[in-house]
């Protein structure tokens, strides 16, 4: 974590403009700034802001790519809210987010606590645990997952040893979503390294003081570690839940492109893909996309609002 120590963050916008002073200098700074920023500005206008507005418009139209969009008012939204498959996709996605995110973060924090102790081979473990986060999104791993969780494969047989026989997870509508949850949890390495960096910044003296006062390990974790890493925890909860809302590739590949069986892995993006790119219902798909944006914005807002109650920032304490 050397980067963290070498690079104390400075507040933005406090820096005086470099040597050139006066109005002419300021104008030159502005010009230079916008020139350097020009790729981003072009990208923001052409690929982010413009498309967002277009997509908002499409959401109120019937549009199949081949004939011009036709204004239909709220039709897409009313159809969508009554569409049983849309409801199904919401249910599947919520279940996925609510189950996968806490499990993944719990494992990430647990392993981070383990790795925060200096032991031999620590760096090697850290690297190995991080690897799944890099390959987890690939089609290759999707295939591997499909194989490992299919009927008669390792997970199924291990289960039968324990006396539970579900006949493989991939073909079972009640279980297949949990194979996806497992794939998400398997990628706990990314939040883990962020927890680890947070743990390393907790001042050692706090633990020593608490120990002198006779606080046990659990007590120290609850009263020192958890509050001290709460900003990092917040960051992880925010990032991981937003990512989980947007899952696509793993559901598509593990379900063999069907997002099934019986729509059991019909995550939101999967349905959006089917509607937009298979059925060419661009209007409906845009309405779905905007509904998701609103939902994610609400979740983000609630998380930011809740952080007052449980996130402790050092600056605030000073």
């Amino acid at each position, binding site marked *: 974590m050397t980067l963290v120590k070498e690079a104390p963050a400075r507040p933005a916008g406090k820096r005086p403009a470099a040597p050139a002073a006066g109005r002419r200098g300021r104008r030159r700074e502005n010009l230079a700034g916008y020139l350097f920023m020009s790729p981003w500005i072009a990208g923001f206008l052409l690929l982010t802001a413009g498309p967002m507005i277009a997509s908002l418009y499409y959401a109120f139209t019937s549009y199949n790519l081949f004939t011009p969009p036709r204004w239909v008012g709220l039709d897409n939204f009313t159809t969508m809210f009554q569409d049983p498959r849309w409801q199904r996709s919401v249910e599947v996605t919520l279940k996925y987010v609510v189950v996968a995110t806490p499990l993944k973060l719990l494992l990430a924090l647990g392993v981070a606590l383990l790795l925060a102790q200096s032991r031999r081979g620590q760096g090697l473990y850290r690297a190995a645990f991080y690897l799944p986060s890099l390959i987890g999104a690939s089609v290759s791993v999707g295939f591997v997952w499909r194989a490992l969780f299919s009927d008669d494969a390792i997970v199924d047989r291990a289960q039968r040893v324990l006396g539970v026989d579900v006949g493989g997870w991939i073909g079972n509508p009640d279980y297949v979503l949990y194979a996806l949850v497992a794939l998400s949890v398997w990628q706990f390495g990314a939040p883990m390294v962020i927890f680890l960096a947070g743990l390393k910044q907790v001042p050692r003296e706090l633990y020593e003081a608490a120990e002198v006062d006779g606080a046990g390990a659990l007590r120290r974790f609850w009263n020192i570690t958890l509050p001290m890493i709460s900003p990092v925890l917040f960051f992880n909860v925010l990032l991981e839940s937003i990512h989980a*809302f947007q899952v696509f590739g793993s559901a598509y590949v593990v379900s063999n492109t069907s997002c099934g069986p019986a729509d059991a892995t019909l995550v939101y993006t999967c349905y959006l893909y089917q509607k937009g*790119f298979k059925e060419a219902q661009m209007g409906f798909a845009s309405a779905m996309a905007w509904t998701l944006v609103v939902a994610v914005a609400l979740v983000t807002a609630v998380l930011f609002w809740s952080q007052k109650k449980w996130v402790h920032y050092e600056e605030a304490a000073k």
Partner: protein
Amino acid sequence: MTTATRPAAPGTGRRAGSLAWHAGALLVLAVVLYPVIWVLGASFKPSKDIVASLDLLPAKPVWANFSGLADGISGISVSSFFVNSLMYALLAVVGVVVSSSLTAYAFAKIGFAGRNLLFTLMIGTLLLPYHVLLIPQYVLFRKLELVDTLVPLVAGKFLATEAFFVFLMVQFMRGLPRELDEAARLDGCGHLRTYWSVVLPLCRPAVITSAIFTFINAWNDFMGPLIYLNTPSKYTVSLGLMMFRDQEGISDYGSMIAMSLVALVPVVAFFMAFQRYLIDGMATSGLKG
């Protein structure tokens, strides 16, 4: 130095603690690496054994799965998928490094009007679900007749839409000693010169982190190619893998698994070479959020 748990007592207690620690870590490691080792072993098994046999490693390794790859698939050689993926990934890396570092320099080192507003907008795009851009961007690129080319996949990279990397580089540049670039400016260097000769070389760790993540993300990218590429000869590795599934059926399971393994090799190799940069870069971005 232990963190949250009790400091180990000297002598036997310490050794027992160390043993327990390694036992715990190894247990997690076994579960985490199981799928990776499984695919390694499975690619050397005959097709019919791959799912059925529980042995992690093949009884008798066979090369048939890999030699099957040499035939290609539906008349397209496997190497074509790799060349396409490589093109995509390298273009993405060049685009992200150039555009993100220029943008980050403006945010971190130039005091221009409206900087804070634009910075807030840039951070806002980090949290924006990409879905809302998926359809209008497709419509746009379709109108420009750029579907079935790499342009839609890499255009955003050259226009700094990967806000995460801009953010990473801004954070890094803000951490650089201010005296260095101010000295360069006082010596009469323009911003371009300061960026190129002073700031960019000092940002090597952030640049390398961004480059590797971009490479891996592009290599793994599935949805982009799925939406934009239609001609099999232009397919990337991700789509090529899906062709195995579509056309060969279960009979050529072995080649599919072998190609899955081969597709993972560049990512794993990059990771092994640069894991320090990657992990530190990741952790840093999280801490300063």
